[in-house]
């Protein structure tokens, strides 16, 4: 097991090298850079521009720029943001919490809803509630996240029940601590709903399919024929085995915690990583884009690794050597 983990971590190195090199080339080979806009500004003198180019290291040849970035990144120094004039790590960590908060809550809500629904659907296969659920699942995986965000914001405005977009109200600073928690919670309802419902659909269908598969197994028939109560058969024998494959999905979702909500964050102006990165891409804020691509890929790979480990832990039949 340990060897497997080590090997996976080692294989991460060439992968990250490739990912960063490709992203670097894509960004740098595209026309224009962050200074392009400043060049049009008559107030900024050519000397200042040259100075800034040198400061940002943009005057060096491409391979020097990349190697320099790589060397610094190895020491966890991801450089400065052109647009914000602060270290990239500082910028990212300030947004990290907001994105994590949104995604972790959405993940928890999704699992809490999806697993029981999936069990219900499998136990009453082809009943009207099963059919309704699977049709609803089709709808929710087929609705673009930005569209459901827009629609719910429209609905929130019409009813006046919930705030529209953002993370805090104007009076946030003047609220007591419980008022602040409540304020953020109210702002989170719609984004959590959108993200949660989106992943409920996939999870629920997976849970349903797994449980149906398990319910056909001999040991379930044995459990039933020895007269166990149906609830015991389902909860103790079937669900435990059916939930195993979901662990892989859990790993994938862990990997997507940082990058999965970008579209929604932009739509609902949630001050998270996704919005930061989209802006950085637009402005060609090179080092912010590079750092976020690295973080995004590392979390994706780490999520898959965690899934592998959890799977081996929960299912003794799986061995990695």
């Amino acid at each position, binding site marked *: 097991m340990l060897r497997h983990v080590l090997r996976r971590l080692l294989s991460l190195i060439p992968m990250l090298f490739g990912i960063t090199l490709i992203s670097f080339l894509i960004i740098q080979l595209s026309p224009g850079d962050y200074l392009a806009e400043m060049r049009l500004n008559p107030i900024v003198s050519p000397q200042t521009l040259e100075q800034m180019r040198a400061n940002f290291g943009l005057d060096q040849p491409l391979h020097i720029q990349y190697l320099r970035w790589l060397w610094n990144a190895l020491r966890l120094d991801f450089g400065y943001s052109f647009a914000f004039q602060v270290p990239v790590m500082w910028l990212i960590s300030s947004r990290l919490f907001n994105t994590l908060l949104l995604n972790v809550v959405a993940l928890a809500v999704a699992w809490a809803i999806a697993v029981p629904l999936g069990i219900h659907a499998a136990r009453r296969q082809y009943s009207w509630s099963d059919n309704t659920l699977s049709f609803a699942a089709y709808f929710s995986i087929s609705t*673009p996240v930005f569209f459901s965000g827009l629609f719910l914001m429209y609905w929130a405005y019409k009813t006046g029940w919930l705030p529209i977009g953002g993370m805090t109200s104007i009076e946030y600073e003047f609220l007591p601590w419980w008022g602040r928690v409540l304020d953020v919670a109210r702002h989170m309802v719609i984004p959590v709903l959108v993200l949660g419902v989106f992943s409920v659909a996939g999870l629920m269908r997976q849970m349903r399919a797994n449980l149906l598969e398990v319910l056909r197994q001999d040991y379930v028939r044995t459990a039933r024929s020895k007269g166990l109560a149906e609830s015991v058969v389902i909860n103790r024998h079937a669900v435990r085995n059916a939930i195993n494959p979901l662990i892989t999905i859990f790993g994938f979702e862990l990997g997507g915690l940082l990058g999965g909500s970008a579209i929604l964050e932009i739509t609902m102006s949630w001050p998270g990583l996704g919005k930061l990165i989209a802006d950085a891409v637009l402005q060609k804020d090179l080092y912010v884009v590079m750092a976020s691509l690295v973080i995004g890929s590392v979390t994706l790979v780490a999520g898959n690794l965690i899934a592998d480990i959890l799977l081996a832990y929960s299912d003794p039949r799986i061995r990695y050597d």
Partner: protein
Amino acid sequence: MAQQVIRPGAVPRATARGLEPSQIRTPAQLAWRQLRRHRMALAGGAVLVVLYTLVIFAEFIAPYSLDYSDRARFYHPPVVPQFWDARGVSLRPFVHATTLTDPGLRRYSVDDTRRYYVRFFTRGEPYRLFGLIPSTVHLFGVDEPGRIFLMGTDQSGRDQFSRILYGSRISMSIGILAAGITIPIGMLYGGIAGYYGGRIDNVMMRIAEMMIAFPGFYLLLTLSAVLPTNVACTTRFYLITFILAFLGWAGFSRLIRGMVLSLKEREYVLAARAAGLDDLRVIMRHVLPNTASLVIVVATLGIPGAILGESSLSFFGFGVREPCSSWGNLLVAASNLPTLILSPWLLFPGVFIIAAVVAFNLFGDGLRDALDPRLRTG
């Protein structure tokens, strides 16, 4: 379909079970029989037929052209043909004309003294059907100054229904085109990796995994930000398609590789190799054709992904841009909340996105059940 062709191996088995030769079904017939039982899949297929009919005959069905703009009727609410008004019931549907009364709140007053009947096969703006046949006949329309804005208008008074129809061309074809690029690349790549195995497989799959480990949406954004902005709509459309395909091939090639790994050990592949065929021909003629059902299913289920990808990109201004229209691009008008609140009909393009994606998903799932013999229910 090769309905008359009965494979030699199938006859003795079928007759042994006491079936007449006429009762023997080809794999395609079996799949169709299974698909027919899947009512949701058929409904999905029907929706797709309707949508593609709209795509093909967009100019004819749309009452107005892509660039038609009625500046005096911006953000006009939907005008739905009606059968009755204060003066009584009419068997012919008609609309009333409107005039702008409050530009700030975009209020329109309805003049219900005159009816403008909906005319079918009426003359309107000239267009070329299929880009070839010049015509001025539109499926329906109303006389001036009446307007038939089935789904309202946008900020410059352009008919949203017509623009949705024109936009469906891009939105409904991008998935198919992207699949058309992804599938050959993914099949060849996965086929070679799976067939040779060993070191070649190892290196090729590491490269594919690298592609998969890219955080998708960010890469999509980065690549689209690189695209030139001052090119024609169609050029940009092809570039976006290419990017979507570029993101898709790796995951697909991994699926194919897994399947080829098991297929290459089958007897018929060994036989083909023993007969002296070269590797490429074995892969192309004997191994890959057996992945056909997987490919069809992955393609059908992958197309909605591309539709969603295009609409998200265009929604954020990275994809298809004005003056072209696609469903995502049309939704940009709805992204401004104060505008949306006054003109909720701007959400209509989203309804088309959902309908198309649901239809593809339903149809794809039905197809998977139909093509997978293990899932057949008798």
